[in-house]
């Protein structure tokens, strides 16, 4: 039985879903149906129960069902460590999405304290070979599951860095003004770096003691310029101050945690993730998600809600079976999609099944 789980999910005018209510029990949820039926849209809706732009990083207005475009709403009954919360997030056509927690207006960031959600989606299949952005975002999502304030720190850092970048572009030279902005960047940036390092440490520790069919990764936080990761606020403050002249030439900030990257090596083979086979790369990602879940189950008392979009792709039948076994053993509420029911054969009756139909509006059929 999952300790952190969506008990009931209601989508209203969310992408292809006009209105849908999904009831869950303690089991993971396996969703199948043809291409374009609306499976990923369900996972995306759940991802909106956490802070940020969700698993497609879509613009808020894009989520509103066409042709109506009357806005959208996702609500959920969330069970977290024995407490039940009502979460609701919606968009009415202008501004940003709003959040209600137990009927009270709350900042979006507050969702992170309740709904710890992590995900793997097909675009992440290329995570290890593409730019650092994706890896940083992935790591930050894991970090936020351990430490919800990581989201706040990220907002503060990004906002103050945008300020600094504008000052650099505008040719402002007032050292006191830079100092004020950089001080906030440094405080938030040091927290960000520490959270990331701690996340890596926790995941590595969880990997070390787990019995799993998934490959362990040696993880390190590296810097874009292969320089040292700056961990303290004072060092960051100095680095920003020292870099003003150079940054002014570049028109942007060239040091700081926004330049960090997650490096992974397939441990048993000692091969960098980017040079592994497609299936191995996917297995590494799954491995990290599972280790994150194990560590969180220890620290927080519950595994996160795990969204796995087409996770079966690139995994052979044995790996798939192993994944299902490990998810069930963790007691995590995983929401998994696949085009055919056969992808979930080895899961048997350990999951709740939903069949999604295409049509004028996506229709969801619970399978008894």
């Amino acid at each position, binding site marked *: 039985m999952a300790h952190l789980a969506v008990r009931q999910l209601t989508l209203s005018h969310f992408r292809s879903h006009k209105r849908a209510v999904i009831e869950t029990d303690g089991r993971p949820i396996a969703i199948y149906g043809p291409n374009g039926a609306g499976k990923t849209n369900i996972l995306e809706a759940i991802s909106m129960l956490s802070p940020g732009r969700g698993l497609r990083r879509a613009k808020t207005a894009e989520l509103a069902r066409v042709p109506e475009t009357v806005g959208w709403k996702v609500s959920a009954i969330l069970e977290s460590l024995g407490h039940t919360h009502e979460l609701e997030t919606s968009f009415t056509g202008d501004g940003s999405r709003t959040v209600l927690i137990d009927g009270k207006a709350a*900042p979006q960031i507050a969702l992170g304290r309740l709904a710890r959600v992590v995900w793997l989606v097909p675009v992440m299949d290329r995570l290890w070979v593409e730019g650092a952005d994706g890896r940083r975002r992935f790591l930050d999502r894991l970090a936020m599951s351990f430490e919800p304030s990581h989201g706040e720190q990220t907002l503060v850092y990004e906002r103050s860095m945008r300020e600094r970048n504008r000052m650099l572009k505008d040719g*402002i030279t007032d050292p006191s*003004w830079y100092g*004020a*902005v950089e001080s906030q960047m440094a405080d938030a940036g040091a927290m960000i770096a520490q959270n990331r390092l701690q996340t890596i440490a926790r995941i590595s520790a969880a990997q070390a003691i787990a019995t799993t069919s998934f490959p362990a990764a040696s993880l390190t936080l590296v810097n874009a310029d292969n320089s040292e990761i700056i961990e303290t606020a004072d060092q960051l403050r100095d680095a920003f101050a020292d870099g003003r002249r150079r940054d002014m030439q570049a028109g942007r900030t060239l040091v700081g945690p926004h330049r960090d990257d997650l490096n992974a090596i397939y441990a048993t083979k000692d091969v960098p993730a980017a040079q592994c086979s497609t299936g191995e790369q996917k297995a590494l990602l799954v491995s990290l998600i599972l280790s994150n879940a194990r560590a969180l189950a220890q620290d927080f008392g519950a595994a996160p809600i795990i969204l796995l979009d087409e996770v079966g792709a690139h995994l052979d039948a044995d790996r798939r079976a192993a994944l299902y076994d490990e998810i069930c053993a963790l007691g995590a509420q995983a929401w998994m999609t696949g085009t055919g029911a056969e992808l979930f054969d080895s899961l048997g009756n350990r999951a709740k099944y939903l069949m999604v139909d295409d049509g004028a509006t996506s229709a969801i059929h619970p399978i008894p």
Partner: protein
Amino acid sequence: MNSNNKDIDILIQLMAKLPGLGPRSARRAVLHLIKKRDILLSPLADSLFTVAQTARECVTCGNIGTMDQCDVCADPRRAIGQICVVEDVSDLWAMERAAVFKGRYHVLGGVLSALDGVGPEELRIPNLVSRVGDENITEVILALNATVDGQTTAHYIADQLEDMGVSVTSLAQGVPIGGELDYLDDGTITAALNARKAV
């Protein structure tokens, strides 16, 4: 067309520009005023006229009053060596409503934001620095919002005042991120003031 009458329409349109009012509520307000011509509309008109003639910014602190110096700056009992720095006049009025702060104020008229084109020159920061020198100030209390820009401004001011022998403190962070002083209740403001800490 709101009322079929040109003069009344003008009034409705002006009222609809007030914060918190839209065309619908402006129509209702105007109708109400006209019905209460003697006890509401005429006194309101007189009062608007008076304030339009006399309202101005206090030359010292930036508060809004009807004299060159606002009531707080004109009151010698408030010269206790403390200046509370706020972003906006509405924040000053919120502090006054809470009635806990006994010193004087300084209204910045905004916060530093390069993205919005607001630099130190656009704010009343140079005046603050000269007031600290001129008025025997011992403590400057920063009551700025807990937004990124509010905190940048707090850091900046603390830096400007660093060598002036004055202690710079900040309201305790009971003020939520993005939370505005104007919206806090009196008790929260009092608690935040009492628990202020050095910057």
